[in-house]
């Protein structure tokens, strides 16, 4: 005998379940498009900064404050990480977002470095090369978070050392990075994990902490 209750409940549950999956996907897509919007805005902002650097005289260039885009970039980084968690790192959309984010970071790094050199600024510039799912890299990331919080540093760029990206390969080659974690602090390469005190010592030796 056919149990119509069972069939009805099966149909309703399946429908609700599919609605749930659809909603979940819709929320995830919203996150993705939100991150893409943030990234597009950042890219546009960076282009503006780049253009401003070209237009302005060297003296005026030194008056540019990069902090706002650096803060936005930090937030975007968090969003990209969350998306990688949500969709998986092999997802085509998040992989593309992540690659663009890496490229963006390096462009910003070059711009800030140019301004720093032109203006003889003592702002610390740090590139952090990490490896995914590696305890030392995670630990180094936490150390840099602490450093950033302690000294209000915004010019720290986290790069996946194994990202399949020509810009990443080039910068690694330029700075002779051959392991992860590795740090490039004010253009000096440290192919090792560094404790907070070690980084502070390097920064204290070279710059005046803000």
């Amino acid at each position: 005998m056919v149990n119509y209750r069972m069939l009805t409940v099966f149909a309703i549950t399946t429908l609700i379940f599919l609605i749930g999956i659809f909603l979940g996907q819709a929320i995830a897509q919203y996150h993705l498009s939100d991150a893409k919007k943030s990234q597009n805005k950042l890219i546009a902002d960076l282009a503006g900064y780049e253009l401003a650097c070209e237009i302005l005289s060297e003296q005026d260039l030194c008056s540019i404050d990069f902090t706002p885009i650096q803060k936005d970039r930090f937030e975007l980084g968090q969003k990209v990480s969350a998306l990688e968690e949500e969709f998986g790192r092999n997802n085509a959309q998040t992989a593309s977002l992540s690659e663009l984010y890496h490229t963006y970071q390096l462009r910003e790094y070059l711009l800030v470095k140019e301004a720093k050199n032109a203006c003889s600024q003592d702002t610390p510039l740090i590139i952090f090369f990490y490896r995914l799912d590696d305890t030392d890299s995670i630990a180094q990331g936490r150390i840099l978070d602490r450093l950033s919080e302690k000294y209000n540093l915004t010019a720290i760029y986290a790069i996946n050392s194994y990202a399949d990206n020509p810009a990443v390969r080039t910068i690694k080659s330029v700075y002779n990075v051959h392991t992860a974690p590795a740090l490039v602090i004010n253009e000096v390469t440290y192919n090792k994990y560094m404790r907070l005190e070690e980084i502070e010592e390097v920064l204290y030796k070279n710059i005046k902490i803000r």
Partner: protein
Amino acid sequence: MIADLSSIGLPIMYAISYFLLFNGIYLLFVRLENQNNMESPKPDKKYSITVIVPMYNGAKHIKECVDSLLNMDYPKEKVEILVIDDGSTDNSYEIAKKIKGIKAYRKNHAGKSAAVNYGIKKAKGELIGILDVDSSVSQNALIKMVGFFKDKKVAAVHSGLRAKNNDRFIEKFQELEYMFSLFFKKMFSMIDGLYVTPGVFSVFRASVFREIGVFDTSEMSEDLEIAFRIISKKYVIKCAIDAKTYTVVPDKFKDLTRQRVRWNCGLARNLSRYRHLLSTNYGELGYFVLPFTIIGHLTIMVFFSYVLANFTITLINNLILMSIIGVETYLRGMLTFNMAWGFLQSKIFFYTLLTTALGIIFLYYSKKYTGSKKKWGILAIHYTLYIMVAGFVYFYFWIATFYRIFRKDVRW
């Protein structure tokens, strides 16, 4: 770093969500279809009944138990009360002997089933009720139960069992659990899927024992085994949710664990022994109630094994991380942890919302039909605490069950 288990977490959560939704919606349908049948039927006649009280060292409870039986709203000439002392080492038999209106017997200690079987042999009633000595019945409990026997296929009736003691947290936990459980048993009873006849005043048609035999004395969960045997013969068990009966629930976690280990062992053993019941030949019992009981227990085991494994891996990874970066940096990192896209936007939030809503609906029904006098505010707090701890507690009971089975240490 140990790889975490997040990749298998989502499929597990989807499977559990589907299971809970299906189960919840099914029972909601059963409730809506039977909204006018929740009260027990009126009896067509006053059956004669023998109530058997098996007793082992029950001196503390026997008076209250028998008094409740003597005070039932039922013709006295139709009620026979037999107290069977199973070789108590205290003075419970002497106490029982002094109570007027009952018959007390004493036999050598051989376990509860043997005591009940002894009583069944002596019973004269058309119906046989069994009441554990630490339990009692309300005045109208029996009259609410006998009406079900109008239907010839009804072999037994389960009473509306409630927890008697509710002072300590562990007792409140069981009080709420019994309340929920009673409502679900009523729903199972509506679809002829009830498969247990607890010792707290289950009433049997006496002729059924002649047909299927008496209690199996080798069984630790004899009330479950006899119920499976009844169902195997295509009889049904009904639940009289409004027939209020009360039992003393364990007040120590150790005692509760021992009780649940026994229940789990009994369930596993009898499901294996009566696996032929998992068939469409036995209606919704065979293709809904029993499969979902099994899946429910498996879900608890799988989900909490996952939670435990994931927690352990995360703990180890975090300890490694803390040993590298130092406690202060680690703790500061925890405080600034990115919670921006938290649980509220997760993929299973929708299901969590729906299952919570179903849980609240069932809480409402459970309160309504069990006649709980608890205030909603108190009940909401108890329910929240129950939801938070119940899964872990049941998982622990299964771990304890496997451990005891492994050590061959399953006792009463």
